[in-house]
């Protein structure tokens, strides 16, 4: 073997070996790859399963989270408290519905804003502590301050709690804010009510005390008033005792006036149901000697009256009302030491909303008495107290009794009325008294009608009454009025009578025991004579049986006892009524 050939041969054999190695490796690798692919398949399908499983788990967790989130959101939004989250930069990152309603800004417009953006010009106090909470990690409760909202400035009470991440680092603030407007309002109302209650209790107790003392005092005072009179007559005109005695007399009179007021107060609570006209009360007072005396003392003050001619009547006590008018006019005079004018007005007013100083008023018609002066006025802080007994801005004892306004107050209260005072210092005051109106006519005595107006024309009248004396009185009265009167003593008899013969009018007693009553009698009569005229007479008050009889056609209801005019007019009116 030649060396070169050998060398070449070696080279060839080396390459052959290398190729063989590579071929072998290739064959093995091929099978191994096949094996590997199978394994990959396994692994991948396994991984797919794992991914599916994890996805399912994640979905489950997510839907649980969604439920929790919804629950939380409902709770947050249902809360009457304003709830908010802020980040450490003081920007709002979440707020509940109440918060957005409070500001009238959509929630997404709140997110990212700072306190100053949302509440311009509000107290710094309500957010300045944010920094401290973030720094210390400690909550701050009960911060009080005001914020400006579209509905105005509102008092707020705020609790703030640091919001920590899982490592305990402060990442923001969770806050709860309460709108204190309502609470403060009711707090104020409560104080107001307490004050009112205290005032009325004070007046009540003074009234009771005064009433007790007044009677005794009145007797004692008689001496002070009448003995000076006697003494003055006895001593000479130039006696040096004259002036002191006159002073005693004056003092006595003043004391008597005080006692009179006390008595008026003490008589409070007695119900007075006289129907009265405020106009008449005013004119009556103006014409009275007391008033004339005051006018003559104060010629610098004019008194004007504007009385409403259609003024509705009221029900009440003339004594108290007269006193009330007098006290108010007197005050008006005294408020005007210089020139001035007093205006007394009356008018009707339908009240349907609360009046100043009253939470509730009864809706309805009111007759109003208004007294306006141009005097010194009453400072606002005194307005609440002017009705308290012995409260006065004037020097005590110089004029008045110290009870005048208390009488006014008590009178208005007792008449279920309201009082409204407006006053401006230096310009004058307006006292407006509201009294519930009545539709009843004045309880005055009307002039008697001439007897000719109700004389009979010989008509036949049947009187049905179970009491003999009553039958006799009726027969005598109606006979005098030129009627032909027949009487029966029971309903059944009356029905029999009507069957036999007609009667122009039947006067029915309502209650006849035993036997059928007036209503039943009338019913049976109507069955026989459908247009039978009748009037009802009874000692008892009008009741539903009377009204039922009237519905059936009976005329006037006449209240016993029988009086000539009353029964005469009723009979005449019924007979003159055109037939149905």
């Amino acid at each position, binding site marked *: 073997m030649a060396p070169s050939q050998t060398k070449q041969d*070696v080279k060839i*054999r*080396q390459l052959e*070996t*290398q190729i*063989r*190695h590579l*071929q*072998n*490796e290739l*064959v*093995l690798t091929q*099978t*191994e790859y096949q*094996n*590997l692919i*199978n*394994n*990959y398949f*396994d*692994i991948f399908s*396994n*991984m797919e399963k794992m991914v599916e499983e994890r996805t399912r788990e994640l979905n489950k967790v997510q839907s649980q989270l969604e439920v929790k989130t919804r629950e939380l959101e409902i709770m947050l939004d249902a809360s009457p408290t304003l709830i908010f989250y802020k980040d450490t930069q003081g920007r709002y990152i979440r707020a509940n519905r109440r918060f957005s309603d409070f500001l009238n800004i959509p929630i997404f417009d709140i997110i990212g804003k700072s306190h100053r953006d949302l509440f311009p010009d509000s107290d710094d106090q309500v957010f300045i502590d944010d920094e401290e909470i973030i720094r210390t990690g400690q909550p701050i409760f009960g911060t009080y301050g005001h914020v400006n909202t579209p509905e105005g400035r509102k008092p707020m009470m705020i609790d703030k709690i640091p919001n920590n991440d899982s490592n305990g680092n402060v990442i923001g603030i969770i806050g709860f804010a309460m709108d204190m407007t309502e609470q403060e309002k009711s707090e104020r109302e409560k104080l107001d009510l307490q004050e009112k209650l205290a005032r009325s209790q004070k007046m009540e107790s003074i009234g009771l005390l005064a009433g007790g003392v007044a009677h005794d005092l009145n007797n004692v005072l008689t001496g002070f008033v009448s003995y000076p009179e006697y003494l003055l007559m006895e001593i000479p005109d130039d006696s040096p005792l004259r002036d002191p005695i006159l002073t005693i007399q004056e003092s006595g009179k003043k004391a008597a006036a005080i006692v009179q007021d006390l008595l008026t107060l003490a008589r409070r609570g007695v119900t007075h149901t006289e129907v009265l006209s405020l106009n008449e009360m005013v004119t009556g007072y103006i014409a009275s000697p007391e008033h004339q005396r005051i006018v003559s003392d104060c010629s610098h003050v004019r008194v004007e009256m504007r009385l409403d001619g259609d003024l509705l009547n009221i029900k009440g006590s003339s004594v108290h009302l007269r006193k009330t008018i007098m006290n108010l006019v007197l005050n008006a005079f005294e408020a005007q030491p210089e020139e001035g004018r007093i205006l007394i007005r009356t008018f009707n007013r339908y009240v349907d909303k609360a009046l100043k100083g009253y939470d509730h008023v009864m809706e309805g018609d009111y007759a109003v008495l208004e007294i306006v002066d141009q005097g010194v006025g009453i400072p606002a802080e005194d307005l609440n107290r002017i009705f308290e007994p012995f409260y006065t801005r004037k020097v005590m004892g110089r004029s008045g009794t110290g009870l005048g306004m208390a009488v006014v107050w008590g009178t208005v209260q007792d008449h279920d009325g309201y009082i409204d005072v407006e006053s401006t210092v230096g310009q004058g005051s307006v006292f407006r008294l509201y009294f519930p109106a009545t539709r009843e006519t004045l309880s005055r005595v009307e002039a008697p009608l001439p007897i000719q107006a109700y004389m009979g024309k010989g008509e036949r009248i049947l009187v049905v009454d179970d009491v003999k004396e009553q039958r006799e009185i009726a027969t005598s009265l109606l006979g005098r009025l030129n009627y032909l009167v027949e009487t029966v003593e029971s309903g059944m008899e009356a029905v029999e009578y009507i069957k036999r013969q007609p009667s122009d009018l039947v006067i029915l007693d309502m209650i006849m025991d035993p036997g059928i009553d007036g209503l039943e009698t009338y019913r049976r009569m109507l069955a026989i004579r459908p247009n039978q005229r009748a009037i009802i007479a009874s000692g008892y008050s009008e009741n539903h049986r009377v009204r039922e009889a009237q519905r059936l056609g009976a005329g006037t209801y006449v209240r016993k006892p029988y009086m000539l005019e009353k029964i005469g007019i009723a009979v005449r009116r019924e007979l003159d009524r055109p037939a149905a």
Partner: protein
Amino acid sequence: MKTPQDHTEELRQLIEQVNATSISSIGSVVTRIIAVINDPDATAKELVEIILTDPPLAANVLRLVNSAYCAPKNKIADIQQAVIFIGFEALKELALNQKVCEIFKRGVNINGYSREKLWKHSVAVALFCKMIYRKEFAQRGENAYALGLLHDLGIIIRDQFQNEMLLKALQAAAQNNLPLNDAERETCGYDHAHIGMALAKNWCLPEEIVFGIGYHHDPRESQNGDTTLSQVLHIANYCCQKNNIGYCDAPLQDAAVFTQCCQVLKIEPHAIDLVMGEVEQKIAAMEAEGLL
């Protein structure tokens, strides 16, 4: 001179001693990995499970897979991904490597002998064996790599449990210019091949491996039917020592056994050279990455 059989009792006691330490648990994992390697139907999943039940091993495997030697684009976070990235075959080797390495790295170094060098030698022999099988026989040679790693197991056991004996043997070998196994037999009657075989048997490793370890100095003595693996191991051992890769327990080799083996297996010198060259390259690459 006593035959190794006379030392059966002594070996049994030694193995017992070894199994009382954590080497026993290493052994069981090694056994399981080798079983997977030997089972043609085994799936990557089984291997992954073995690795996952041994957290230090899993950590080591991931460390290696993520090293510059493998250089993944994205960090590999679990063994499943490791299978996909480096392949089933590579992962088998990697896992076995790591587990066996635990035995070699255990304990302290002693003078005059380096465990690191012994480990490097073992890895080189393992690679060599594997390549011969694949390139020359076109066979996967399931146990070739494992045998390469484990063939000097006896030395390390001796190092850790019969340290004085090893020192004596090393001294004798140096003085008399003897291979270590001969020196061992002279000083204590049996060599590290006997110890390794006893331990492999105890761990129930495949017979091929057990006998491969026991007769790696002279495959001709093996009574096992097929001595191919023993012979390949002998060739690999011879070549690695001759080329000075790692520890060398027999400076003066008996070239006759080597030549005979090559002839029996019909392996030409060119093939040996090619394989040797590749092994050297790989060992150098691994060393550069600090994997040895």
